[in-house]
């Protein structure tokens, strides 16, 4: 059994900040570190847990400096500790509304209201839903989005994983420690995960990969018990008996707060320039929520640094 420690958040009653960051993933917390070191009064709003989506990742192996890899959850804690060290405040409050028409920007949370002279959106992405029959009905009744949380429920069972990108393959390898057998279903003709992950996938005799397949529907009574998948080349539909399904079929941007306020691209990602400025002066976007060619911890950290620095420059120029 393993035992580990984490630090507590320290909150003030302050209602106005020079910089507000929405999202406490790698981008948001890196921006907080940079702003804190620039002596900018900064708040970070976190919805659930510091680290953002990265806490779901059992081991991050491509983040420089951690040769043996590091758990996403541990990395998230380190980021939060680092941001707090330089004075940023992390509030466990869900932001429900933003008003960006004038400065200071208004921020409403589920509990209170705040204002800020600048804003960084680092709200990340959510797992794309498949929008197939049974998906909603069996979510949390066999369908899951967090392997590190829920894989132990499927000890000795047959499991489906949707998506053969980095997340799908990496999580399949993790789930294989528990499950009897895993079927990965990928819509494309080939898996898009990194070659090193594909090698591990090929070496794992518990996992089968079906490319050019899509999920038609999830079935069951009270709990998930099977899935219909279709071979898009032959048109053949198969029913697989499964107890669990994990869905990693791409991401959608968490843009609810700014959908009608900022310029978005055709997929809903926030459009930024190279300084990570958005279509509203004083509002920046960083990390997975913006239009970027690669969504990784390393790229989010880079974004956070730029957004933090540019928010600081914006505040300085206003003086």
């Amino acid at each position, binding site marked *: *059994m393993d*035992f580990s*420690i984490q630090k507590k958040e320290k909150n003030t009653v302050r209602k106005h900040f020079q910089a507000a960051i929405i999202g406490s993933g790698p981008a948001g917390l890196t921006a907080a570190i940079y702003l804190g070191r620039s002596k900018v009064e900064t708040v970070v709003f976190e919805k659930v847990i510091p680290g953002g989506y990265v806490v779901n990742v*059992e081991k991050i192996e491509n983040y420089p400096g951690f040769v043996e890899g590091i758990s996403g*959850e541990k990395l998230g804690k380190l980021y939060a500790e680092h941001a707090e060290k330089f004075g940023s405040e992390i509030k466990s409050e869900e932001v429900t509304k933003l008003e960006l028409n004038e400065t200071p920007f208004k921020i409403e949370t589920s509990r209170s209201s705040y204002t800020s002279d600048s804003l960084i959106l680092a709200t990340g992405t959510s797992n794309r839903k498949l929008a197939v029959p049974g998906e909603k009905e069996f979510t*949390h009744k066999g369908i899951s989005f*967090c392997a*590190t*949380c*829920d894989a132990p429920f499927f000890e000795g069972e047959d499991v489906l994983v949707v998506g053969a990108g980095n997340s799908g393959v990496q999580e399949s390898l993790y789930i294989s420690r528990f499950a009897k057998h895993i079927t990965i279903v990928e819509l494309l003709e080939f898996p898009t995960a990194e070659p090193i992950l594909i090698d591990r996938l090929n070496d794992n005799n518990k996992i089968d990969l079906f490319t050019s397949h899509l999920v038609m529907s999830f079935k069951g009574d009270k709990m998930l018990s099977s899935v219909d998948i279709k071979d898009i080349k032959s048109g053949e539909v198969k029913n697989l008996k499964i107890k669990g399904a994990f869905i990693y079929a791409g991401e959608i941007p968490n843009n609810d707060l700014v959908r009608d306020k900022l310029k978005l691209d055709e997929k809903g990602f926030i459009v930024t320039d190279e300084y990570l400025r958005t279509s509203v002066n004083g509002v920046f976007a960083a990390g997975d929520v913006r239009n970027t060619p690669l969504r990784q911890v390393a790229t989010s950290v880079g974004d956070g640094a730029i957004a933090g620095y540019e928010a600081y420059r914006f505040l300085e120029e206003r003086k």
Partner: protein
Amino acid sequence: MGLLSEEDRKYLKEEFNNNINREVKLLYFRNDKNGSEYSKQTKELLEELTSLNDNLSLIVESCDNTEKIKSEELTLCPSIKIKSDRSGFLNFYGVPAGHEFISLVEAIKDMGSDNLSLPEDVIKSLKEIKEPLDIKVFITHGCPYCPGAVRNAHQFSLVNDKIKSSMVDANYFGELSRKHGISSVPHIIVNDKKGFVGNLPPDLFLDKIKEALK
């Protein structure tokens, strides 16, 4: 060599010294029939923890002591109940290992102090609860979201003695998990009936609990 690293022992000692100002008893009901290594390691861990501060003590009982279990208002075994003269029902069914270890540490600190880190509006709302409320937070040791949910429930119990809060190791108590149809965590079961999945900030967490009561 103990279960805690030297670095963690040092950190915990400092945390306990800075936070604990009243006697705290860890009441551990152990189950030697079902997983003796599990039980042995848990006892070792609790011994190590309670050795770090003079205000902490450990009482070990057997799951066979059904009278005592009943008198403590517990329904499952093994369990670790954290007690002090502060009002609050803070309990762990199974072992709070992995990510849940921090929940145990926080519960000990809470019961040994006057700490309360809930917003005023949530405290007010919790005080208005008149009927008994049993919150069970089902967890797995690898779930990073679960400690936040356990912490919310435990803090709620500190505000109102009508509220009982327990972490439940979903894998150890597999049958109970299956009975509630649990396959995702944190899964919060209210009054052994309805529930919801996921952790939320305290105000929204309370809203969900109230919704489950309807």
